[in-house]
């Protein structure tokens, strides 16, 4: 299980290289056959250059099932104090005693989930922060292939001609629209799990043969 630790001696850029070499599936494959990694980051702010990742949570979805045995939640040792953002994610400096180096967390992520389609609710932010982090740590950009449950939801609602109220696309609102259980917001793993359930529901309510390319189109 801790196999990825042994690779620590390999040059850092090599980790990203290996990740990038494992290409995500082709666009014409049925979405049902893809493996997804649903991820959520808690951040100190919205600026990827200036702000930091506080915690990461992820859970894979394979063959239409959320695999809880691989659910992960990591607090990240932050170069600066958590400060003001504690208001949102409820984490304080004292909680970070068993936090991990971001490099370790990202290494696990890249080595385990190469070839996965990454999923997040409002993925641009997560994508930017992961990219900057990879640049800084590995001096190389990882080629993440992301889809966005928020944009898929937007596409669905527009297609049904539903007039959207304010906040209609926020995760809790999406969950209740899909009659899915609510959970503790602003906890990286809880949010990743909720997004995973949302993805399952969205996939089930699309036509059975929806391809990855279709999903990617809806995610834009």
């Amino acid at each position: 299980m801790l196999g990825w630790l042994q690779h620590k001696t390999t040059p850092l850029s090599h980790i990203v290289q290996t990740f990038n070499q494992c290409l995500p599936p082709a666009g014409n494959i049925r979405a049902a056959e893809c493996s997804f990694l649903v991820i959520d980051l808690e951040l100190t702010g919205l600026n990827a250059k200036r702000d930091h990742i506080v915690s990461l949570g992820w859970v894979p979805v394979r063959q239409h099932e959320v695999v809880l045995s691989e659910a992960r939640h990591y607090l990240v040792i932050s170069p600066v104090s958590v400060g003001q953002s504690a208001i949102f994610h409820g984490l304080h400096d004292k909680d970070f005693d068993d936090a991990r180096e971001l490099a370790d967390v990202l290494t696990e992520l890249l080595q385990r989930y190469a070839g996965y389609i990454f999923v997040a609710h409002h993925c641009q932010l997560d994508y930017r922060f992961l990219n900057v982090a990879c640049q800084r740590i590995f001096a190389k950009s990882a080629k993440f292939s992301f889809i966005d449950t928020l944009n898929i939801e937007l596409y669905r609602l527009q297609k049904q001609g539903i007039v959207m109220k304010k906040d209609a696309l926020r995760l809790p609102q999406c969950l209740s629209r899909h009659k899915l259980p609510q959970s503790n917001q602003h906890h990286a793993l809880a949010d990743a799990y909720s997004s995973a359930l949302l993805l399952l529901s969205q996939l089930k309510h699309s036509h059975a043969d929806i391809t990855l390319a279709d999903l990617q189109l809806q995610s834009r």
Partner: protein
Amino acid sequence: MEVAEVTTFLAGTTPFDQLKTTELASLAEQISVYYCQNGETVQLSSERLMIVRTGIFALFSDQQTLLTKLEEGDFYGYQLLLTGLADNDQLVCEEDGLVYWLTAEAFHQLRYQYKNIDIFFQRLFSRRLHQYKAQQQHSRFTLKVSDVVQARKVAISGEQTVQQAAILMTEKRVSSLLVEQDDRLVGIITDRDLRSRVLADNLAAQTPVNQVMTAKPHTIDKHAYLFEAVQLMSRHNVHHLPVLDKQQSYSMITATDIIRSQQDHPVYLIGEIHRQTSVDGLEHCASQITNLALTMGKQQVPAHEAGHIITTITDALTQRLIKLAQIEFGPSPCVFSWLAFGSQGRMDQSLNADQDNALLLEKEPVGDVADYFAALADFVCQGLARCGIILCPGNIMASNSALRLSLKGWSGQFAKWVNSPTPEALLKSSIFFDLRVIEGSKGLFNALQNDILARTNGNTLFLYHLAQTALQRTAPLSFLRNFILEHDGKQKKGLDLKKRGISVITDIVRVYALSAGIAEINTRQRLVKLASNGIMDAKDTQNLSDAFDILAQLRWDKHQHDLTEGHEVSNLLDPKVLSGLQRHQLKDSLTVINDAQSALKHRFCREM
């Protein structure tokens, strides 16, 4: 790592609720979550246990009959995991939902570690088997020969002597023997044969059995119904029948066996009651009611029939106590009617009912008449209390002098309730409108009932107030169709099947019945009459009647359960112990009550 939403759900789900937090977390790690869509057939797997997180799933047998519905917190697939045997059931999603799949490994680990969890799933499994049995056998279950006789074969061969037969009978304490030749049944010999065919005919003790036995006797199969045995015995005037199992002799059934098996039949108990000459004797008879109730449960007597039978027994006890009182205090100075109200009046009495009775007298209760009936009423009410029918906490009993009135007195009393109704007074008095005569003059009673119905029939003000009291208690369903549970004095949580279910229906139906001058008292009969007279919509009465039956059945089952466990009989039911289908029926029934209350309000409380 832990997903809080999943562990929180597991922590609130029987039987996982007994696990520690750390154990719940590692249990959650063995789970995969799947989203199931309406119409989808769930692919069952031998490798995993299914736990319903949200949504509704319908389970169909291979004949496409609906077996049950699964909802939040229900399980499926345990039968395959427990027995390794697959069945041909089909599980179809009816409402989109989430399914947890727990690995077989984790399931077995849990069962191994926790005896309680193992027992929980074993019970689920056996209840399921029971469900199948009920499905196959639509007819009512009646006793079979095999329920009464044990596998006790006492046999002798034809060549042995009658003396040896007599010795064997004495030794085994039986009144008859099977006679076998080469393992085949050839005849029977009874102690009566020894008397009339051996002793009376002066035959030697060394006479072989086959000379005096009854050859080729009538036989009955082990799986035959008991009444078939009774029929066979009376048709051929015999008291012994060899019982066969697959054409081999298995045992003997005698007339005594049959009588013994029927001893806790209500007919016998009521006969017993009328033979008693003391309150002690009646108390002893009444102590058998519990056993009778359990037997009725085993024979799957429906709740409304059981309620009827229990009422009949209470009636018999009352009648006998009145007779005993008349022996003690002499004949009554005037004609009277002993009245029963409430559940005894409606003939749907349950095991924990209290007394609700009164006296209607031909003469005004003054002087000797008053003294006589005071003594009689006290004797009967105290006697009933000794028989387990507790004294009425609200003092609605004939022993209360305010409830021993002449026809004029009662008529005045009802006139007061009907003509100037106040909510408080009606709330207390509504049970008086469900009255029946138990003993004494039927004519006197009819006069009173006609008087009441003439007052209530079409009396809008009275009906408005009576409807208001029927609206006071609501069915315990929340806006989102969840059960609202309440606590009893002992901190037990549950749903009061009587107060918030059965009684509400009774109250609603009473308003309609009184509005139309219907003399029927029993709730089901009132509904039949209301439908046939066109007072209520036929579909609505059917729905109410079904809901009433379901609630009564649940209460009856609950009482049975309480009796078996040795608990005090209570009306408070925890919906968690119900199967998915029962929970559905319960919710449906409560919805029916809600609808009926709105209709009642619309009909009787509109113009006020």
